[in-house]
């Protein structure tokens, strides 16, 4: 591994990694069960530098911003490295957003360059807002020959001969602008510095190291803080290999574990639960004697790994299970959303250590992580080295808002000093999450103070961001809430959005209105949909400027309706 402390920027660390491990494989890319690409660190450099040179020749200057909208693939990482090489700022955007949202964030980030996959660019070109695009240079990957790209360049052809100039950045220079959400009214662009990432890399690799020969399966989107760190920066500075699978089909994900003998993988709860479902179904198909034998081996494994994992022993006790995961899996990292303890325990009992953690875009990849000494399914682990965590205003159970101070905490929100001041107070980041420390120093989370939900797929959803879909709904007024914000419960999981409706005088809730609501709801991506509605009989409290007083309305509803009278949509 490189000595990270000596670096002031990601570009320099990555540049040295490419020279230090020239013949190691750094990237493998597969389309379903077909391998498409395999690159050494030396190959990676050969592809990235002509792109960096072409960017420099196109007047992409230090501090200029370049957005990337791509699924997980080699060109994501090659492009990001080329941008860092030029001293630029990477703006990773979620490829699952709509074209209109992409255009909104491109404008907000003032990205000079956009690097985008063809199918996503096609959607952006067709959006009504496309004529407002301000991005100067667009590079489109994998475009069919002869396709109309509306003035964009083909990524594959955008290269120049000659060595580009490497631009060194300082620790407090901006490395990335990552949107934690807020595509509706108020985009939240987290401005993260090179120091943020270098510190995160140091603390994470101290607990979970990479080395040449390690293979990380990259499934979480690379725009997500976790994959950016453990599916790019972390493995690269250690000479490890990242495997990109260009599908999320469960059967190919399972196949990739075996085909590429995966060492680590980070997954959101939805995928882990899917794996659990698949395994349980297979167990159920076993003849009863085999099932009894398996249960006995699981019980023995549970007993022998109670204090700490012992992967070698687990592989001997449960060889078929471990062969199904490729035989070399060391840990399954989960994060980005609440994970049911029973699911984690299921995998741990099989000898597959599940590393549970807690982080947020505003504070880098992870703030706490389970050190597996012993495994704890009921906590999100202990603070990583260099991370200070305080519980603000704890109640009688010790539960209060989690506040964080660390060199991994973002610099500020882009162009939003007011929100920055509300969020970072005296150097402490107020997370909006509720938690407490238990007696062994593990953090436990219990819910949220803020009006938002996190889906099982790890998506942060702010109700305000999706209200525009209901614009023009024939009711007097409406608002969307996280159900837990109105009716707080000291637990996470099963988070839902609720549409609160105030009807016009004499209006009745009829089937036409229900159909209208349902149709609008269907326009949202599945993970953003409202789960139910609630008819509210009073006018919403509003500020002098007629904005809904969300907190006050939530309190009013909670007072009147102790048990959520929500009708499921």
């Amino acid at each position: 591994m490189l000595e990270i402390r000596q670096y002031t920027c990601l570009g320099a660390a990555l540049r040295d990694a490419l020279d230090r491990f020239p013949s190691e494989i750094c990237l493998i890319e597969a389309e379903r069960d077909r391998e498409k690409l395999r690159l050494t660190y030396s190959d990676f450099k050969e592809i990235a530098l002509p792109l960096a040179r072409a960017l420099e020749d196109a007047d992409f200057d230090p501090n200029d911003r370049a957005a990337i909208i791509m699924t997980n693939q080699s060109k994501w990482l090659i492009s990001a490295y080329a941008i860092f090489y030029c001293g630029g700022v990477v703006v990773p955007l979620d490829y699952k957003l709509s074209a209109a949202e992409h255009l909104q964030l491109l404008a907000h980030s003032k990205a000079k360059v956009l690097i985008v996959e063809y199918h996503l660019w096609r959607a952006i070109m067709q959006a009504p807002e496309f004529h407002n695009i301000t991005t100067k240079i667009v590079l489109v990957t994998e475009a069919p020959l002869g396709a109309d790209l509306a003035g964009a360049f083909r990524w594959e052809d955008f290269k120049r001969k000659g060595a580009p100039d490497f631009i060194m950045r300082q620790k407090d220079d901006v490395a990335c602008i990552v949107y934690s959400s807020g595509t509706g009214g108020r985009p939240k662009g987290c401005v993260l510095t090179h120091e943020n990432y270098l510190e995160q890399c140091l603390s994470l690799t101290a607990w979970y190291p990479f080395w040449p020969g390690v293979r990380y399966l990259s499934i979480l989107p690379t725009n997500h803080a976790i994959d950016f760190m453990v599916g790019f920066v972390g493995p690269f500075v250690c000479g490890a290999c990242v495997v990109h699978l260009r599908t999320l089909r469960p059967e190919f994900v399972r196949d990739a574990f075996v085909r590429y003998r995966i060492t680590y993988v980070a997954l959101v709860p939805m995928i882990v639960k899917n794996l659990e479902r698949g395994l349980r179904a297979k167990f159920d198909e076993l003849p009863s004697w085999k099932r009894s034998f398996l249960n006995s081996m699981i019980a023995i494994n549970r007993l022998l790994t109670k204090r700490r994992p012992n992967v070698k022993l687990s592989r001997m006790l449960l060889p078929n299970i471990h062969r199904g995961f490729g035989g070399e899996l060391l840990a399954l990292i989960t994060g980005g959303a609440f994970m049911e303890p029973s699911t984690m325990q299921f995998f741990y009992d099989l000898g597959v250590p599940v590393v549970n953690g807690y982080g947020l875009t505003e504070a880098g990849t992870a703030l706490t992580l389970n050190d597996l000494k012993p495994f704890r399914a009921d906590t999100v682990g202990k603070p990583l080295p260099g991370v200070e965590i305080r519980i603000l205003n704890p109640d009688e159970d010790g539960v209060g808002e989690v506040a964080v101070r660390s060199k991994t905490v973002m610099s500020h929100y882009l162009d939003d000093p007011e929100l920055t001041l509300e969020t970072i107070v005296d150097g402490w980041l107020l997370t909006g999450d509720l938690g407490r420390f238990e007696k062994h120093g593990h953090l436990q989370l219990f819910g949220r103070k803020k009006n938002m939900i996190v889906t099982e797929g790890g998506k942060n959803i702010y109700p305000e961001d999706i209200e525009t879909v209901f614009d023009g709904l024939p009711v007097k007024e409406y608002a969307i809430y996280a159900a837990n914000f109105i009716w707080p419960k000291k637990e996470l999981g099963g988070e839902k959005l609720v549409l609160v409706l105030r009807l016009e005088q004499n209006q009745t809730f009829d089937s036409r209105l229900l159909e209208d609501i349902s149709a609008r709801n269907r326009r949202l991506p599945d993970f953003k949909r409202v789960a139910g509605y609630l008819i509210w009989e009073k006018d919403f409290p509003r500020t002098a400027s007629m904005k809904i007083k969300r907190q006050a309305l939530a309190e009013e509803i909670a007072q009147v309706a102790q048990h959520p009278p929500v009708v499921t949509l």
Partner: protein
Amino acid sequence: MQTAEQTLNEILTLAAAHFKVPREKLSPDDDFFKALGIDSLQTLDLLTKLENHFHVELPDYELQGVSDFRTLAGKIQVRL
């Protein structure tokens, strides 16, 4: 070549059988997440079943933003 209506009917029948939902409870314009009670990963499972049945290959991104059977059928029909 089969008609779009036939494709749609076959999709509804396959989806009902795969997720053990009565066929008569599914309509072309239903939101399949809700009608089948599935998440986006299970939808990808369904897609694989449909690919095998119709002998076509649909990239994952083709499903982005698609939530009703009729639109899904359209995506498959153009590849037949």
